[in-house]
Structures are given as structure tokens and as C-alpha cells.
């Protein structure tokens, strides 16, 4: 056992606190966080140890471990002492970012950050092309007086696979005579994930620009495709003293169905398993609306996965992990796909661009292309309306 003299670590304890990691002090080492953490299904990882190290100033910020947490929210949801492990982890990442220490698998973050700075999206794609996904369909630009801003997130804006989700959503919105528009070029990444990856400064910059553009454009209500955007608009942007009315697309769809504005004409004769995205379910308590939407589709058989609702198994994409490298055998998304196959699902449906990205990758890796389709909930709705 390595011997350390605690008096030498007092300053680090303080630095960690200043970086925003505060609740580690509550930990009474029960280990519950480790037992609920998805990492321990694929490899050893102890968030308990990280929390305790943070509280004694013994954190190893140069180590990859502090970058593992996907911020899935399982451990803070159950921590008996009220430790917010996500906050602790983010605090440590801020320190690491401050000192510029990134272990190899985390290195892509640097490029991502550069892209976000230059173009407002993690891919470094041209800012002016942000609304290109609307080319094939008719989506009006947002103007003062339009009821909803549709905020598709960077992935549906640029990613080939996910553009289909943005388009499906826009089609549903049009068909239901929703007054909506998109901002396009003047829109930035919401900043949620880069914040979790420790770059607080960049998050604030992205958020402020977004807020300014939203206000200038006269935005009051926002419909978001990504639970991550939804989460940060709803729970984090208020730190800047703004309060937009935020709806996740599944909430909006549910409202449309309730009001009878959305009519399902077709049938969807498939066995469908629903995956709760962490940021929709655990972080924001939205479990019912997506299920209610799916239940109202004729022909659709809704299946539950083994870990569902509060216990949902993370896809592995949160907390900036979507940009980091994870060895194939350590990807939670692969476990999730296997679960879907085991319950006999033909379609794995969800409501988050990160989840879809990871699941589509996993489908290829696991050779499930013939067996299992990955869908966003809007894609199914659009197909049957």
C-alpha cells in the first residue's frame, strides 16, 4: 500500500472543491454507486474510489478513469448520502482540462472543442450548412411570432443517419400544422456534452451565443430532438437567467395525439423495444410520453427491455463519451442491443441522437443488421401518419 501524507494534499482538496466538485464530502463508502454503474458490467471501474480520492485530494487527474463516467445518472439517483457523482467527475475533468492533461482515448476532445469554437458543432462542419438537412423538405426559417423553434441538435443537422430524424420530425410538425421554424446558421451546439467533458468556458460561450440568438430571434418555445439539448436548455440555461419553454419532441408528440391533431393512419406491425435515454428518463423523469405515443400506434407490439425506466442501461454516449474511444468489448450499447434481441424485438426505438449513433454502430459490430433496426420515435410516427 502506497503511503501518502495528507498534509501534502490540502491544496488539492481545495482546488477540487473550487472546480465545482463539492458533494464528495457526503460519501460514506457504501459502494452502492459501483453496484449500479454500467461500467462494472464490462470492466472494473470504481466511481466510489474517484469520489473518495476527490475528497482526500488524491485524485489522479492524468488518469483515464476520471473520463469514464457517462453521466448516465444511475448512481446519483440512488446515492443514499446525496453525493452527485456527475458533478464530482465533471469537477475533476475541469481540473484536467485546465492543466491540459488528456489521456489518449480522450484526446479527440481537443478536436471537438476546436470544432465547437470555430463552427459551433463538434464535427467542425461549416456553420453555414447547419440547416442543409432542410433542403429536401419545406421548413421555414424561424422568425419573430412563430410559436416554436425546432432545435434538431448537431447530430441530426449534420450526420447522414440522423438527418432522417430531423426530417421526420419536421414532417410531423408540418403535417400537424405546428407553427415552427429553424434558425440554422445562427445556432450553436447546446454545449451540454462539452460541459460534462470539463470545458466550462466553452460551454458558457456556446450557451451565451445561443441565448443571444434565441432572444434576438424572439424565441419563446423550443422543441428539442435530443434529450441532451432538452436537459441543458431546461435545467442549465436558467443559470443565465433565461427561461424558455422547452419541450422534448416526445412530449410534443404526446400532446398532439391527446389533442387529436396527430392522426395515425397506418399500421406498424413490428415488435418494438423502447430504450429510455438517460437524459430523458433519469435526468428529466420523462418515461410515460414516449411509451404512450408508441402504444397508440396500431399493430405495434411494445416490449420492455430488462433494464428499463429508472434502471435503463446507458448507451455509453453521455458525458462527452460519444466523442471518446471505447474498445468494442467495453461498449454498453452492445449489451443493450443484445438485450433487445433477447426480448425478441425487431426494432429498437429510442429518442436520442447519441443513443441512435451508438446503437447503429453496435448493429454493425454485432452483425445484427438483418435482425434489428434502430429507430427514433419520430421516424416510426412519420411512417404511419
Amino acid at each position, binding site marked *: *500500500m502506497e503511503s*501518502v501524507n495528507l498534509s501534502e494534499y490540502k491544496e488539492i482538496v481545495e482546488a477540487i472543491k473550487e472546480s465545482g466538485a463539492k458533494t464528495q464530502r457526503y460519501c460514506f463508502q457504501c*459502494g452502492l454507486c459501483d453496484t449500479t454503474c454500467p461500467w462494472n458490467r464490462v470492466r472494473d471501474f470504481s466511481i466510489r*474510489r474517484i469520489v*473518495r480520492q476527490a475528497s*482526500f485530494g488524491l485524485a489522479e487527474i492524468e488518469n483515464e478513469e476520471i473520463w469514464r463516467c457517462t453521466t448516465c445518472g444511475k448512481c446519483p439517483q440512488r446515492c443514499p448520502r446525496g453525493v452527485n457523482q456527475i458533478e464530482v467527475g465533471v469537477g475533476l475533468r475541469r481540473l484536467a482540462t485546465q492543466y491540459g492533461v488528456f489521456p489518449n482515448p480522450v484526446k479527440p476532445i481537443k478536436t471537438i472543442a476546436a470544432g465547437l469554437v470555430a463552427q459551433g458543432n463538434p464535427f467542425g462542419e461549416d456553420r453555414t450548412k447547419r440547416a442543409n438537412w432542410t433542403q429536401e423538405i419545406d421548413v421555414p426559417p424561424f422568425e419573430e411570432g412563430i410559436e416554436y423553434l425546432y432545435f434538431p441538435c448537431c447530430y441530426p443537422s449534420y450526420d447522414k443517419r440522423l438527418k432522417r430524424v430531423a426530417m421526420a420530425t419536421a414532417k410531423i410538425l408540418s403535417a400537424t400544422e405546428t407553427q415552427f421554424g429553424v434558425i440554422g446558421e445562427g445556432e450553436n451546439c447546446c454545449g451540454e456534452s462539452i460541459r460534462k467533458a470539463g470545458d466550462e468556458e466553452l460551454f458558457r460561450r456556446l450557451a451565451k451565443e445561443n441565448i443571444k440568438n434565441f432572444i434576438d430571434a424572439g424565441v419563446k418555445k423550443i422543441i428539442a430532438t435530443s434529450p441532451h439539448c432538452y436537459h441543458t436548455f431546461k435545467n442549465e440555461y436558467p443559470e443565465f437567467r433565461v427561461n424558455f419553454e422547452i419541450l422534448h419532441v416526445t412530449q410534443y408528440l404526446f400532446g398532439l395525439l391527446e389533442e387529436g391533431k396527430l392522426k395515425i393512419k397506418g399500421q406498424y406491425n413490428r415488435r418494438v423495444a423502447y430504450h429510455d435515454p438517460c437524459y430523458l428518463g433519469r435526468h428529466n423523469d420523462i418515461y410515460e410520453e414516449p411509451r404512450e405515443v408508441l402504444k397508440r400506434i396500431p399493430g405495434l407490439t411494445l416490449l420492455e427491455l430488462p433494464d428499463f425506466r429508472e434502471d435503463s442501461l446507458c448507451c455509453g454516449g453521455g458525458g462527452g463519451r460519444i466523442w471518446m474511444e471505447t474498445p468494442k468489448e467495453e461498449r454498453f450499447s452492445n449489451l443493450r442491443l443484445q438485450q433487445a434481441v433477447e426480448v425478441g424485438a425487431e426494432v429498437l426505438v429510442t429518442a436520442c441522437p447519441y443513443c441512435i449513433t451508438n446503437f447503429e454502430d453496435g448493429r454493425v459490430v454485432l452483425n445484427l443488421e438483418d435482425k434489428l433496426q434502430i429507430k427514433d420515435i419520430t421516424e416510426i410516427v412519420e411512417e404511419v401518419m
Partner: protein
Amino acid sequence: MEGVSGEVGDFKVTLLKKARYIREDKCTGCTTCVEYCPVMVPDPFNQEIGKSKAVHIYFSQAIPLITYIDQSCLYLKEKKCGICETVCENDAIDFRQKDQLDQINVGAIILAPGFEPYDPRVVTEYKYGIFGNVVTSMDFERLLSSTGPYEGEIRRPSDQRHPHKIAWVQCVGSRRVTPGNNSYCSAVCCTYTQKQVILTKDHDSSAECTVFHNDIRSYGKDFERFYERAKNLSGIRFIRSYVTISREDPVTKNVFIRYATPNGVVEEDFDLVVLSVGLNPPKYSKELAQKLGIELEEHGFSKTEPFNLIQTSRPGVFVSGTFQGPTDIPESVFTASGAVSQTGQLLKHRKGKLATERVYPEEKEVAKEEPKVGVFVCHCGANIGRVVNVPEVVEYASKLPHVVHAQEQLFSCSTDSAKQITDVIKEKGLNRVIVAACTPRTHEPTFRDSLREAGLNQYFFEFANIREHCSWVHSMEKEEATKKAKDLVRMSWARAVRLEPLGEYELQVNKTALVVGGGVAGMTTALSLAKQGHEVYLVEREKELGGIVRRLHYTLEGLDVQGFLRDLIKEVYAHPLVHVITNARILNATGYVGNFVTRVQSDGFVKEIKHGATILATGATEYRPKEYLYGQDPRVMTNLELEERLAKGDESLKDLNTVVMIQCVGSRNEERNYCSRICCSQSIKNALKLKELRPDVDIYILFRDIRTYGFREDYYRLASDKGIRFIRYEPQSPPLVGVTDEGTLRVTVEDEILGNQLEIDTDLLSLAVAVVAPEGVEETALKFNATVGLDNFYKEAHVKLRPVDFGTDGVFVCGSAHYPKHIQEVINQAYGAAGRAMTLLSKETVTASGAVALVDQNACISCGACITVCNYGAISFEETPKGKKARVNPVLCKGDGLCTTKCPTGAVQLQHFKDGQIMAQLDAAKGETDILAELDRAVGE
């Protein structure tokens, strides 16, 4: 209870008496209606695991032992059925009964509404009601119980198989700040789990039991040894981890649990998972509080006075048991007695005015008559009747010599049947009565009472146990059991005809009490007794009153202890009925219940005190440590020494940068195998005080298990909130304390989670030292015929049910002399001891049993063997014209008969169990076959 109006001394309480649909005066509890009732409902008493009927008896030993009709009844729901009404021979079913409002007027109210077991369905994480083989600890109690759904066989819900590998999950609903859980520790679960583990091993010695926990809280008397006992059984694991109940095997229905170890997370499956659920406030506590006009504390339990947990926010309304906060059985018992004492303080003038003594008819002289024996054979519902052929036994008994009456009864103990016995005695002039039923433990007093009602000496009653000794153990061998029942009846008959009438001893009660020990416990007891009109002598060894509390200054909750103590001492001195003797030594003590004489010496005078009751409240003291450089380095001190410095406002404490506290110094080791209970809270209390003085001081508490049970858990979290750091050490690698070459005081300790050895350079080291019994406790015990346990704390008569009584009548115990305690607990128990003492002091006389030993002084050879063996000091030599002879003081004799076995000449005989009576009973065992002949044959083979 619907509402309370009025005020202390004159409360008007409105009660709603729920319709039972059974006429209580007619129902005999025969359960015929239950057999015929077609409606099966989940049995509420068996945690809904088993089934019961819409009409049923709540449980087999219910009081009253009569049925009630549940709302699931077809007749109540839709006016159908009514079969029970037809089959009841006693006309006891009454569907016209309505809920009735009733009003009673009382002077005071004692609240003992108990608790509600935590319902793990409130959150999904415990998977209760989701996975079939996850049960609560209350469910498991019923599974263990012989009166439970599987008659004492442990079976799991999914397939009724016997589970072999069982996991217990601790702190379910407790010690958690997450929604749906309680932040406090429920205080009883660690130990009841250990009990369940031990009982499980009794059922199946190869069972594998695993307990998942984060701290084992064995803080009560003898709990640590109990923990060791459970831990050391084979196949038992105690694993330090909260868990995730992750999944269910689709085929076996086994339950998977994920737990953390320092080397990673492990997933393991179990046949059955038991959730150790905590204690919630009673279900209706809010409603109750509103109706009673009392306040609740933040967790929903009763709000109480800071230094008197028995007093609610409303005068005249007292609280006992778990409504004070999570607590175990002994505390629920002594707080009940404590509430009684406080009620007595209020209502002493009313005592005896409403209640009336029972008057029995005069006893008839029958000893010289021919024996006329009556035999009553009980069916005990189906308990006996299902196995033993009762009519056959009656028939057999009626043919025995001297038997003039024999009959069967469904429940001999029911009020009706007991009265029938009285009537038959009078009618047929019986002078011996045998009831063949259960054990004397339960119903001997009932039937002795029937005899007294008929004017017969109660010692003419004889019990034959054909339930525990027969039907319960031979349920598969009905014929043999019937034969055995006859044998047992015949044996009882042989003894019964030889029984003699015995008188009981009436003793005057001296109304004065002696309280030994002038600490908070002694003073509280003394004052409570004085306030009920009794003279009290309060004797204290030291010059001043107060005991160890003189060294305490504040509580964990921040109460001012010295202020409280000053007021208490003032009140003691001001009360005219309390006589304080300080600097006192007990010279000797003699006498017996109601009539003690104790000689006390103080400052050159000797006072002889005559008293009816004695309360021992001799307190406890601090262990002087040899460990961790104590006494060698001035920076090392005990918790109390630190507290004194804090209280004095020692300025140097503000300069401390680092403080270390080490727990369990001198406790929980081989020498003192007990937990000192208060030290975890004490360290946290001091640490919080230091933080108040200087918020940036670094404090490390080195502990084995943090035992902040009950609401104290909130302070444990508060300490973490203030940045106090806790480091767990294992007893096999305790912290090392040394001084470096530079003179730095350095504590080194391993942290398993960090995987580091931590060096802490500290300015001050405070030791949480053991609480130990004071010197001379054994001597004091000896003087008062009290007993001390393994750890030199006084040993009560019964851990659960008589927690402040001694085996010796008239002597009581309270405070830290019984076991280390927090100050509020001491006060609770002190009132409890006063309450118990009052049950004696408020009587004019006490009765002592007639079944005591008697010496035939002619046969006594003065060997003294009986004197040595007597546990109660009941036998002594007395000078007789024939020299020294043994004499039994019947008042002190407990009738255990030990002396009769030691007496070489048979001079000592235990009345009611004389040799002749017992030999006759044994001879009768032989019955028709000659046992001796059988033995000869056996030896010959």
C-alpha cells in the same frame, strides 16, 4: 380514536369502536365459522403470505381469542352467504353490529401507537413486489414462525422450495436521503437480521447466509456478542456494501445481487433476498397528532421535550415506545413504565378511586376430606383436538379413583369455560382440579383463579400439559398421542390427590425508597417517586450530585447539559421528600421486598434506612486508556477531556489545524466485548463543536462502524457536510500513533477504498474510550442481591420484558449502570425504574408464593449446602436450642428447589413439589406396563 377535548386531568376522548360482527360475550373462539366460511383472504397477520378467511381469529394467541369479520365478507359486501350465522352454535354472529361512538373521560393519555414497517414498494429499487423471491424482514419473521404460513418451514414465494442461499439487505428505507426513504437509522435492523440469520441456521444448518450492510450497529446490551455469534457461524458472510438487486433468473427465479468490494463489483445469485426494512412512524401519526393536538418532529414521530422524551407537546399526554423514535423492545417497555411514572406524578390523588380490588369468597377447609377430583380436558380449538382423541381421554380420566367429574372443553381458558370450572367445583364439591391443556407458563394463573372463585385453595390445582408435550410434538401419531395424553392425565391425577393447601405470605410494604447513585438516573428516579408522595433516600458516593454528567456539557443535539443538571440538582434538594446523603458508603443491606434495611455511612455518621424498594443507579465511568500514547503525549486525550476543554473555551483549540479522533478505544475487543454505544455520537458532537470554533480545521474520525443509531444518523451526515472526514479501520490493522523525529504527532491508518496508507500529522488526538462500570459495582450488587453480567453492568431480570427489574424482588436498575446510554435514554430508563418501583410502593402489602422451601430442623445437620447453593440468599442459619439450623425466609425463596437437591438428609422440602408428590407422579408414569421390567430386558440384551 376520533378526538380529544378538555385538558390534563379531564380529557374527553371520543372512540369509534369498529363493528366486529361478533358478540364478544358469546363467541368461544371455537372457529367452526372459520371452517365453513367460503371467502379466502390474504392473512394480514401473516404478512398476506398465507390465506385466511373473511371470518377468522386474528392469530392463534390473540387477545381476545375470538373471531372478527373482515370487510371481504360476502354478507357485508352483498348480503349473500351468512353461512357462519347458521353454523355458530352460540349465536355469536351479529351482522347488525354497527361502528359505535363511545366517549371516555380520563385524566391522562399514554401514546403507544408503535411504528409501521417501511414499505419497500414505495420505490422500485428494492424490487419488492417485482421479483417474487424478494421478501421483507417482517415477511421472513412469519416464515420462521411455527404459527406462520408454512408452520415454521422457511419456503420461498416463487415455488415454495426451501431456500438455501439467502441474502439480507440492510438499511432498506433507512439511512438514505433519496426520496421515499428515511434519513434516520431504524436502530433495530442490524440485530434482528442477526437473529434471523441464527434462526435460519437453526432451521437448516447448511444454509448459506449473507448480510449486506455498511455499518453493523450492535450498540445495545449484549449485541456485540450476538453479532460475533452470528458472524462465526459456518456459511455466514457479512459483506460491507449496499447493493443493487439487479435481475431475476427467468427459470430458477433466483435473484441476482450486485455488491461492491475493494476489488470490484461482484454479481451473485440467491434463492431468497430478505429486505431488512426499517421503522416508519405509525401510519396514522399525522391524523393522530392532529386529533390529539400534539406536535410531531420532522420525521413524523412524536415531538418531545428535549430532556424528557416521554412528555409530548401537550400536558397530560405522554409517549412511550417507538413513537418516540425508532427503538427496540426493552426501551419500549421501560419507556412505558416511565410514562406510567409521569402519569402517577400527575394523578397520584386519584389512585385507587375508580378501580376496585377483587374480593374472593372465603376458602373452605377441605384438606381432610376424601379427594374429589375434577378433570377438564381442553381441545384448544384444533390444537389438541385434531391429534388427541379428547372424548377418549375424558372417558379414561372419569374411571380413575377419586375422580368425580370429567368433561371436555373447547377452550378451557375462555372466560366462559373458566367460569364453568368454578361452577362445577361448587356444584360437585370438588377439592382437586386437573386441567389437561397447555402449560402452567400461560394459564396456571387463570385456573388458580377459577379455584379461588369457588372458595378452594389455589394450590389444589394441577396442570397436565397435553399440548406442548403431546399434540404439538406428535401431530402425526394420533393414537400414540392419545395414549400419552392419558398417561399425562394419570400422572397429574397421582400428584393432584396428594396436593396440600398452602397459604401465601402477605407482607407489609414500607413506602420509602432508597436510590443508590446520585447521577442523572438516580436523581430523576428519586424525584419522580417523591412527586408521587414517597419518601426517598438518595445516596451518592461522591461529595456532589451529578455523576459522570458533571463532565458533559452539551449533547449532539446542542442541548445545555450543565444547565439541565443544575436545575435537576436544585429540584432534588428542594423537594421535601428527597433526602440526599453524599459522601456515602453502603455498609450493608438486609431484608426483602417491601422491607429492606440499609445502613449508610457518611461523614462520620451511620444512618439506618428502612425502605420498601431499592433502585441501583450507580452509573458508569470512563476507561483510562493505555493505547495510543495516552498519558505520554499531552496532545493525546479522551473525548471527555476534549469536551471539558471545549466547554471551558480553551483558546488554543482555535489554533488547531488538524484533529484526529480514534473510535472504539478499549471497546469491542477481547477484554471488553461490547460497544460503548455513545462514543460515535460523542466524537461527532465534539468534531462539530471544533468546526464551529474554526470551520477550516481538518478533522479525521477513525472508526470501525459508525453507530449513530436513530435520529443521530442525521448528525453523522451533518458532520460529513461540515467536511469532517471518516476513515474506516479494521481491528486487525488498527491506526498507529507515533511522534516523528521533528516532534510531529503522526497517525497512520490504512484506507481500503483508496488503497493507500494515510499519514495524518495532527495537533490533537482524541480517543473515544470505552464506558466502563465503576469500581465496586460487584460489591454493591452483592449487598443488594443484585447480579452483574459479563461486562460488569447490572443484569436485569429479563432483557426484553423486565429491563429495569432485578431477579430479586423490590430491587430495580436504571441508567448507565445497566449499560452505557445517552442522557435522554438514561432519563427514560430512570422514569421507567420509578414506574416499576411504584407498582410495589403503591401497594399496602405484597404477596409471596406459598410454593417455597421449608426446612425440617430436626433433620437438618447444619452442613450449609443449601445456603451455599441458594441464588437468592433466602436460607440462613438460625440459632435454635439444638444449635445452628438452616431456615428459609419464605419471602426471599423463589421456589426453584435447588436446595432440596443438595440437602443430604432430605431436610429441605419444596412445598407443592414435595418428594412424595413428585414420586407419585413418576410412579404413575409406569402405568400398566412395568418400566422396570422393560429396563431389565433392555439391559439383558
